[in-house]
Structures are given as C-alpha cells and as structure tokens.
C-alpha cells in the first residue's frame, strides 16, 4: 500500500457508506450534512428520482395487461416471485434476477433483493411503527438470546428526528406497545373500517387505527403530497413517500460532500492490525470486474441485513479468521423475519350507498394485544399486529345469481359488496440455530461466495399462528360481518422482506457483534446500521427503526472522529 502517494489521496474519503437504501441513504445524508466527504457505494445501477418507468402505466399499458409471463418468471425470478407481487410487469425491474444472483437454501428462505441505487427504499411497504420499551426489554425479561444494549429512551429522540424529516402520517392513540410518532397528518379509515374500529374497541378492547406510513399528506421539503394513486411500489413521481431517491440522496448531494459510485460491489473491508481499525474497502466494478481500494476514517455498512453480514464474513484477516468482528461466533446467526400470511376475511352487509374516492396507499393497523400485561398473557412469547383494509369488490367478483349477459356486464362495472380482510405480522424470536453462511465453493460471477440459508419458524412462531388467525376472525365477528373465514398460507422466512439479525447489537463482545452505538465491538470505526444489527424482531415493520439507529450512529461516529477516538 502506498500510504503517502497522491494516488491514495484520490481514493480516500472521510467516510464510506456501503449501500444506498433506507439505511445507506440516511447514513449518506447525515455524514455529508456534518461535513464529511463521503463515498456512497452501491452494487447496482444508478436510479435518479423520477426515473420510474412504470409509474404512470395503466393496466392496458402493461404487457399482458399486467399478467406475469410464466416462462420469464421461472427462468429469471423463481425465488423473487415467491411473494406473488414483487416481480410483476410493473415492478420486476426493481428486483434482481435469481438467474444472475443465485443463493442457496438448506431450508426455504425467500430473499427478495433490489440491486440498484435506492435499494428497497423504492419498493418498501412504507409502514412506520415505533418500537416500544417492551420490545427493547423483552429479551432480558424472558431470558431470550441477549439483551438489547439500548432502551426506548435512547432511540426516542432519533425517532422524532427522522420522522420529522421524512414526513409520516398516522393518528395518535396513546398506546404503550406502539408509541405515538411525529405525525404530519393522517389518512382516514373508510366508513366500514371506522365501524369496525368502534365495535372492536367496545367488544375486545383492541385498537384499530390508520396504517401509519411514510406518505406526505401535504408538501414537505420540496416533495409533493400523496395523490392517492397507490402506485407507490413502482416509484412515486411526486416523491410523496419516503425513498432514498426522493429524500436522503438529494439532500446528501446538495451538500457537495457526496460521491456516489454505482456498479460497485464491496468484496470485503480492509483491516489494519496496527491500529485495530478498518481502513478501507475492496471494491469490484460490476461492469468491468476491475478491482479498486477506497479508504476512509469510518465505514458504514448499510448493504442490507444479509449483504452487510456477508461482507463482514468475507473480510478475513489474521486477527479475524472467521470474519471481521466475529469474536463471538454470532456473525450470521440469529436470523429473523416476521412471519405472517395468516388472518381472516369477511363479507360486510350494509353501507351499500357508501364508497370512497381515491386509492389510499395504506390500510388499517391493529396494534398488538398479546402478552402486554398479566391479563393478556399467552402460552407463547411476544405477539403480532395486523394490517388490512375494507373495500368494495370489483369486476373480479363472483355473483351467484348472475353469470353472463347484459345485466351481468352492467353489474360487474359497478361497485360490489364491501369486504374486509386482515393479515397478522408476528414476531420471530432470535435463535442461534437460524443462520446464513457463505458457500466458498459456489461463487457468483464476480468470484464472491454465495449465501446459504438455514432458517425456519420454530416452536414459538408456530404456537402463535392459531391466535393470529382466530383473533382476526374474532374482530370481524365482533364487527358484525358475515362469512368470516380464516386462512393460513405460510410461506418461507424472508417473505416478510424484513430480514433482521446476523450481526446483533449487545452489551457483551463475547455474545454479540455490535455495541450500543452500532459499531463493531473490536473494530470501533465500522458501523452496521441496517437490519443486521437487530437483537430481536418485535412485530412492527422495522425500517423506521433502521433510520433512527442510523442517524444516531452517525452522530456517535462523528463525535468519535472529532474527539480523535477513531
């Protein structure tokens, strides 16, 4: 290494951020805001805000009127298509081709990836629920895995900070299990949902509220308000929901401190034994396969849960024979997702004269009701929330008494009966046995080892699924709806696209990878602030927590740099 050469200066930055999705975009914005010259690396192509090719498509604009091409799905997206929605004609360009980016499964794991600048911040579900004190204390209280090294009060100001910046909507409910947030406004429940909310509260004491999401209900920081098109997953031309493209990356760019390098796979981190620090990254250009080294004082790994951990595993040195930061042996372990795909549906009689205008890009949320206190104690740990909606059925509906002809045609063009459905999103406990590891025999086309998954829903997850279906049925029943039917179509872990764990935070370097500030215990200038850091999974959608942890970690890192600690 040529430490004093001009060449090295040209490839040296104050900070390097690996990944540009929800966490990476936030790291880039915060670091550049604080004056650090920051290199942002992403393995995929660049996407600028507004470059959303299908955003204005109507059904008739799409190939096959939106139907998936079977042969293409099986050839290129056999795993990505397991969700049923990620690889549609409208969205497949936001997901990788399995044919180009293979991975291995000892057990089924649905790993849905988007390799482009902005990552899955373009396609995320946009729901934002704060974690609560009960989520941060649960592991310690129940003796599960290891204790979180932080509590709600540590993250609370950072939730405030990121929520105010991105703009979120929702309604205050004063619930301990899902604390209120900095809401800029709120969408409304429709009349059938409002009816259900009141009945459920009265009969069961549970809270149905509007699904809290990162949508703008008024213009904010140069972004437009939501137009209720509900085409979010294709990319929003108005920038009305939070994405790296619409929010954090433009903010980082205007500081003049960001260098964005797409087509850059980080192969590994470079470790310097003399200083006990990582001094840079090894990069492969995906197009030319040339290799580069870049250097910085601090490195933020925000490549997504599995990718960040893979990079650490692949960063081997004399000091770290089993991967950087893996003194505990926990790197790659305690992989989690949320398990879901169970709930209930019902027909609604009445409200025949009521409809809605606009395609609201959220539904309702029912806050967790299990294991909150002594009275709600169950024979399983933790709990689940629900997401769902009520709507009037359309032309796809079946009508028993009418099958064809002029009246049938007219009827299909009018709103049908109201229906309501909901699905539970449940906590998955951290378990050392649930893991991912690298296969050094099967390399990808850049010579990087592929990922293998060995992860499944265990006893506690399976034990709560009956309640997940039954409580949904109970709510629909309490609302006075008919033909209540439960369902349970479990997929594989990963299907929730909420991968968490594998480089968990903790108090003890012997049992965890990261400290209370998201830095590696033994390598204090490497921070991991995506889902890999999570010590437990709670049942809330995790992205807002990644944002808050990232902003908090950057604040810590910059303090450390200013105090010459790293």
């Amino acid at each position, binding site marked *: 290494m040529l430490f004093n050469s001009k060449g090295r200066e040209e490839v040296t930055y104050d900070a390097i951020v690996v990944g540009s999705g929800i966490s990476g975009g936030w790291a880039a914005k915060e670091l550049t805001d604080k004056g650090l010259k920051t290199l942002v690396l992403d393995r995929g192509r660049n996407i600028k805000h507004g470059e959303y090719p299908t955003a204005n498509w*109507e059904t008739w604009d799409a190939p096959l009127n939106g139907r998936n091409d079977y042969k293409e799905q099986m050839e290129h997206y056999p795993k990505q298509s*397991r969700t049923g929605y990620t690889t549609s004609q409208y969205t497949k360009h936001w997901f990788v081709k399995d044919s180009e980016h293979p991975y291995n499964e000892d057990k089924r794991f649905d790993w849905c990836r988007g390799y482009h600048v902005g990552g899955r911040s373009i396609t995320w579900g946009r729901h934002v629920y704060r974690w609560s004190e009960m989520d941060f204390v649960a592991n310690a209280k129940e003796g599960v895995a290891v204790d979180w090294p932080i509590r709600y009060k540590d993250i609370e100001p950072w939730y405030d900070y990121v929520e105010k910046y991105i703009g979120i909507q929702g309604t205050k409910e004063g619930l301990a299990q899902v604390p209120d947030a900095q809401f800029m406004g709120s969408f409304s429940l429709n009349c059938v949902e409002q009816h259900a909310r009141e009945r459920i509260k009265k009969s069961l004491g549970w809270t149905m509220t509007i699904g809290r999401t990162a949508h703008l209900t008024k213009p904010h920081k140069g972004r437009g308000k939501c137009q209720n098109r509900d085409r979010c997953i294709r990319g929003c031309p*108005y*920038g009305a929901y939070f994405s790296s493209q619409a929010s954090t990356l433009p903010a980082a760019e205007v500081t003049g401190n960001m260098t964005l390098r797409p087509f850059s796979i980080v192969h590994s981190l470079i470790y310097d034994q003399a200083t006990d620090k990582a001094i840079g990254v090894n990069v492969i250009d995906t197009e030319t396969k040339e290799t580069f080294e870049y250097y910085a004082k601090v490195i933020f790994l925000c490549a997504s849960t599995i990718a960040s951990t893979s990079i650490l595993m692949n960063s081997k040195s004399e000091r770290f024979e089993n991967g950087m930061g893996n003194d505990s042996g926990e790197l790659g372990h305690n992989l989690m997702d949320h398990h879901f795909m169970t709930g209930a549906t019902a027909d609604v009689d009445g409200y025949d004269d009521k409809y809605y205008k606009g*395609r609201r890009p959220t539904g309702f949320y029912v806050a967790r009701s299990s294991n909150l206190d002594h009275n709600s104690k169950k024979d399983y740990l933790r709990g689940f929330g629900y997401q769902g909606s009520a709507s009037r059925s359309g032309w796809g509906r079946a009508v028993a008494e009418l099958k064809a002809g002029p009246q049938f045609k007219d009827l*299909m*063009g009018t709103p049908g009966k109201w229906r309501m459905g909901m699905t539970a999103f449940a906590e998955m406990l951290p378990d050392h046995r649930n893991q991912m590891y690298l296969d050094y025999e099967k390399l990808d086309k850049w010579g990087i080892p592929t990922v293998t998954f060995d992860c499944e829903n265990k006893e506690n997850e399976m034990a709560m699924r009956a309640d997940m279906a039954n409580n949904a049925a109970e709510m629909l029943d309490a609302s006075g709806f008919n033909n209540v039917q439960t369902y349970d179509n479990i997929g594989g872990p990963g299907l929730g696209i909420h991968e968490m764990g594998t480089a968990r935070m903790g108090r003890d370097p012997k049992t965890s990878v990261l400290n209370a500030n998201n830095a590696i215990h033994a390598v204090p200038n490497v921070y991991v602030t995506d889902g890999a850091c999570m010590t437990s999974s709670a049942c809330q959608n995790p992205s807002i927590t990644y944002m808050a942890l990232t902003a908090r970690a950057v604040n810590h890192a910059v303090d450390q740099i200013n105090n010459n600690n790293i």
Partner: protein
Amino acid sequence: MNRREALKNTGLAVGYSLSAGTIAAVMNGCKAPTGTEWIPSSIDEDTIDIIAEVAETILPTTNTPGAKEMLVHRYVDEAISHAYGPKHKAYILAGINNITADLNDVAEGDFMHLTGDAKLDAVIKMEELADAFNAKLDAKKAAEKAKNIEINGPERAGAMVHTEPDEFRHYYSDLKGLIIAGYFTSEKIGTEVLAYDPIPGDYDPCMVMSPGQKAWTH
C-alpha cells in the same frame, strides 16, 4: 403520440393534481395496435371464433361495447400463450379446443346457430358444470390439506421449488376469468365505461354514491 412520454413528467410538478379531464385529453388517439390480420398463437384457428362468441355472450354489446369489439378473444389467446405453466396451459387448451362439443352438448344443438337467449342459457349451463366440477376438486384438496396437517402438523414453510399441480379447476372457469379480465383491463373500458380517475388527489373515505355510480378503474 406516446402517452408515456406525455405523462412522464407530470408528477414532477409537485403539490397539485391534474384533473382526470386533462389526462383524458392527453391520451386521446393513443390506441394499442389492432391489426386486421391476426391469427391465434395457441388456440385452434377454427375455435377462436367460438371463443369470441362466448365472450360476447357473457359481455354483450349494449349501450357500452361488447367483448368482441374489445377483441377480448385475442387477449385470451395471448394470456394462455404466456401466463400459464406448461401443464396448466396444455390442460386449458385441451378444454378450450373442445369447447364447441361441450357447448353443443349443454345446448343440445349447434351453439353458434342458437338464437335469442339460447346462447346465454348455454354459457350459464357451462358455468354450472364448471362450478360443480370445481366444488368437488376444492373439497378433495381441503380434505387432503386437513389430513396432511393432522399427520404432519401445520406447515412450517411452503414448497421450495415451484411445481405445477396435477389437477386444475375446470377450463371454463379460467376462460371466463380471462374474458372478464381482458374486457375490464382494456383501455376503452377502463377510461370510458368504468369510473376513471388516474390521479385522484385527495382521498374521500366515505363518499355517498350517486345513482349509476360505476366502479373505479384500478
């Protein structure tokens, strides 16, 4: 004119919404190509006319266009060609290419030459046959699933490799589903028959329906 080009940048002007009327004006004259020379890719050439006739019987011309005018049979052929796995495709095509005989059976005559409501009666009978077939299959599958759970407990994960099932629902049910989808996802029906509001702006959670209210285009 390319509508996508025209609309590409609308959203970049933030904070207000274009009215549906403006969008409709931008879109006038932008139709999908509908050549006069067309041969089906999958369905037998001498069966495609009867598919068009079945579609028109289900969704006939009234004061709004019928399925034939919307070329729904072409959509059906295209969807069958591309959207199904090989086993399912073969199964549906075998059924469809025999639909003349099936319809003649239920109609007790030559379907194509039936008059009055007789064609409508025939497709209703076809659907009743299909419904009965599906009910049996659904019951059988439900029993198998219940038995499987009884023996092995609830599934911890779905199948890792996609495999097509060995048995499918009645071909007519898929055919009818395709006919309806092809019709209601077409541009003319989406913009002129259903309630078209591509950029709604605000959300009204509890709108009072007006007489003759159409369903929103999705």
